[in-house]
């Protein structure tokens, strides 16, 4: 966030700062900000505040009356009905998967940064899934994971028939199938972010290290890693937050069947299917609290590093 703390340019031509100039400035500031800030308020901050309010209510989403119930919704989620929190456990699969994803993305970014012949082609290919339509890419895996579908056929082509599984039916297998689809889709994004960070490391550092006789591991350990450590930590944190918010992939591939429901899916289900807006809002607020807690940790950590 340091990037934003730039100082404003010096006031334009101080002599001309007549009253009308000041008025003009005020007008342009207000005119240019009223709409963007208005939209931000109406569609982002008001709903967030409204969520907090609704989380203390018992409401079906339609009736004009809502009853104030205090912390009852939170007590229900955290104490009486552990079923509501259970989907949160699915986040562990995605978090684990995203750590593998970050590792792979870093590996690919590093070797692509070494200017291998044909490297750009691989960069484009690995990034490709990220630009595809969410439903289309999820449905690719819906087809791919069918019994005797693409994956099973591919495994038998390379002589690994034995690994065939009911990829979307078996409760123990399906979380990993979905994590695989998620890694497939998002790895390229991390790759490009890491690649951009690597590009900003001056290449004469590596040349100097080569002259000094450093091997590849030493170059990675003492040049690359320190330079992109913060970026790695930031991506890991976003991965953590992202794994709490997983939604589209399980919704579109399994519809939440076979225990693949996530916390966000459970939240919107409470609101839009069970008409329990109070419970849904309280769940949304809990998610918000978790997300902000992690981001706070990130801020503290990155500020310590900056010192």
């Amino acid at each position, binding site marked *: 966030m340091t990037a934003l703390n730039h100082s404003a340019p010096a006031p334009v031509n101080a002599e001309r700062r007549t009253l009308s100039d000041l008025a003009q400035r005020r007008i342009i500031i207000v005119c240019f900000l009223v709409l963007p800030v208005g939209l931000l308020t109406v569609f982002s901050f008001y709903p967030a505040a409204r969520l907090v309010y609704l989380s203390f209510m018992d409401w079906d989403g339609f009736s004009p009356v809502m009853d104030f119930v205090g912390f009852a919704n939170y007590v229900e989620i955290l104490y009486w009905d552990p079923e509501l929190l259970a989907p949160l456990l699915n986040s562990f699969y995605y978090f684990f998967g995203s750590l593998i994803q970050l590792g792979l993305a870093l590996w690919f970014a590093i070797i692509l940064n070494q200017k291998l012949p044909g490297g750009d082609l691989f960069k484009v290919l690995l990034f490709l899934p990220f630009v595809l*339509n969410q439903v289309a890419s999820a449905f690719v895996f819906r087809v791919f994971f069918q019994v005797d579908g*693409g994956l099973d056929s591919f495994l038998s082509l390379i002589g690994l028939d034995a690994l065939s599984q009911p990829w979307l039916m078996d409760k123990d297998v399906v979380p990993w199938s979905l994590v695989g689809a998620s890694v497939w889709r998002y790895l390229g994004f991390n790759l490009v972010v890491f690649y951009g960070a690597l590009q900003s490391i001056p290449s004469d550092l590596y040349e100097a290290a080569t002259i000094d006789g450093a091997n590849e591991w030493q170059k990675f350990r003492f040049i690359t890693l320190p330079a992109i450590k913060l970026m790695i930590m930031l991506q890991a944190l976003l991965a953590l937050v992202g794994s709490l918010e997983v939604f589209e992939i399980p919704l579109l591939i399994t519809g939440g069947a076979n225990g693949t429901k996530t916390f966000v899916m459970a939240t919107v289900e409470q609101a839009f299917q069970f008409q329990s807006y109070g419970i849904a809002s309280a769940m949304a607020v809990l998610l918000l609290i978790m997300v902000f807690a992690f981001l706070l940790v990130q801020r503290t950590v990155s500020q310590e590093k900056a010192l």
Partner: protein
Amino acid sequence: MSRSNRTLSQRLDKWRQQQTPISLFWFLFKYATLLVGAAAVLVPPYAVVVSSFKTLEEYQASGAMTAPDNWLHFDNYVTVFQQGNLGLAFLNTGLILAATLVIVAIMGTMVAYVVSRFEFRGRSLILFAYIIAMVVPYVTTQVATFEIIRGLGLINNKLSVILLYSGVDVVTIYIYLQFVRNIPIELDEAAIMEGAGYFTIYRKLIFPLLWPATATVIILNSIMVYNDFYLPFLYLTDESQRTVSTVLYGFTNLFGTNYAEISAGIVMIIIPSLILFFVMQRQIFSGITHGSVKG
């Protein structure tokens, strides 16, 4: 000619000198991982492409990775396009996209201009607000947003998703801010000397000079809008308002488990993204690199 030959042979010599068995092993290992990665990316969509050219009987009888009998069997595509109402879906998505892009470009440049060129109370608060808005999980807040959209009477009105897409987009603001800071303030001053007002400076100077940033913003937002599923799923439920995402989602009801036809639908919806990506990859990569250098 001779010059390039010389450098090539020099490079080859240098390369040979550097090659030890170990570095050759690493070189091959790196390529091997890249090839495995590329295969992992391509195999799942390949199965879909292959299926899309098969008849249902052929799909059920043949292996999912085997090539179709006839690569020019387009029946599935025709069926899906007609029965699935894909034409209308592309039109709806196109309209939403066009409106969103116009609003995002205008509002993004306005915010960037005001925030970068003027000192005023609450300026840093605005940037902070955009950052906070980004981290609020947008799916769960729909529980409350739904009420607002319903209150505004915008259910089944494209304006609902257009407003939601253009309202909260911190990446756009970031990209514009980085670019607007590179426009020298002297240009503003010179324009003022010539008697231009602030709005003229924005319209005639800042907005045109920000065009490279706008190109990036347009592409990133196009990907975002074209790919989004949940907002149209929630707010544009009427048959006539379906977007590409929701129409494809409906295919599981429409075509059941006819995965040959569903595959044709998937391919048709992926094609525009592929075209955009291959034409605009440079802007996409630079946009992501710019938009992500924050924290």
